[in-house]
């Protein structure tokens, strides 16, 4: 029923595995239909979504929406954009900013919002800690 797509199929690095695990983990949260990690340019880094969802257009729009919220928050001096959810009659879209792009979850209409927000925060935290800039080695005198 679902497709797994990982941009770095040829890379066996821990970061590649982490990305896949993060997206799969989020997609397994009760009430989540699908999850994606989308670069700010709309490129799909990893995705696990139902075959009925056209990934590329959704990713392009989600990245545009995420950048619009990021740029808007910065330009208006409100501090960094963090998370958003938008609900409709047939489900809810969750979006969160991470260092390498936007984590997106598509959920059922009756899904537990707090549980999915928690899953989203965990996903962002895992990505951000793995992609944190290297700390310069401490020097001793």
């Amino acid at each position, binding site marked *: 029923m679902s497709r797994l797509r990982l941009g770095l199929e040829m890379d066996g690095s821990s970061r590649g595995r982490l990305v896949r695990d993060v997206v799969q983990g989020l997609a397994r949260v009760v009430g989540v239909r699908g999850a994606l990690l989308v*670069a700010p340019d709309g490129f799909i880094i990893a995705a696990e979504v139902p075959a009925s969802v056209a990934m590329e257009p959704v990713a*392009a*729009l989600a990245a*545009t929406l995420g950048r619009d919220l990021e740029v808007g928050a910065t330009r208006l001096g409100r501090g960094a954009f963090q*998370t958003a*959810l938008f*609900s409709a009659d047939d489900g809810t879209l969750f979006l969160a900013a991470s260092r390498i792009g936007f984590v997106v979850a*598509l959920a059922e209409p009756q899904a537990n*919002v707090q549980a999915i927000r928690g899953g989203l925060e965990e996903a962002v935290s895992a990505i951000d800690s793995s992609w944190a800039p290297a700390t310069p080695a401490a020097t001793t005198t």
Partner: protein
Amino acid sequence: MSVTLPRLWWPALSRREPTPAELFGHADRLRRAGRYGEAAQLVLQGLSLDPASVTGHLLAAYLHVARRKTVPAKQEFRWVLERDASHPRALLGLARIALEEGDVDGCRESLVRALRVYPDFPEAQALLDGLAARRPATAPARPRLDRLRLPAAARALFVLAGDGAVIAVRPESAGEAGGRLARAAGFAAATLQRAGLGPLRRGIVADADDTHFLRADVTLTLALTLPRSTHITQGLLEVNRLWAAAQHELAVAREEVVETTPSVGTRRVS
């Protein structure tokens, strides 16, 4: 024999300098894993060997966008378009940047150019649909928002028409935020539609300082900005209360518009 030969030759092969194509290929694989910094190093190396590579400049542009660096990304996309005026990916990239800069017409123009040459381009079509989702309509009635009782902690209130036009804002100094919110609501609506979830009804957007609570239908979007510390349930209750009050004010404003518009029968002929 066929298995051992490459193994014997590999050390010699690996000692040679990688070609620009190999560097760009490796950089693209790193980019696909979100390893933007490492990818950028390889692209720089490749471009030093082949400065006229369209692939290299396009990759450089993608990496700038991925690292949220708009100005160099725009330069790289333009470099590509100077050599291939209808390059679809470069046009899409420029369209995104135009949108970030608030140039909606520039964004639309780039997308239309890309789709004219490549009609089967789902990402460009989706973005164009997102822009078109909120087409300007007739001038909306302006509700009296000053009569609405806002929560004490409220930082702003916006009422947008179904076409995204800002029809009322409190305080008036928050006008720019209203415009951005309208566009974000338009793209949220387009994303929900593309994901097969239906029209936008509610939204919660959190940044470092504030949380924005939205309610929407086809005719109206209302957004209330509260401090980030506000409990979600409380925020939703407040926006629901204001939604009902704004609907009432909008109905009153529409009635006033009808009453003040002279009908054909009452027009005087001098």
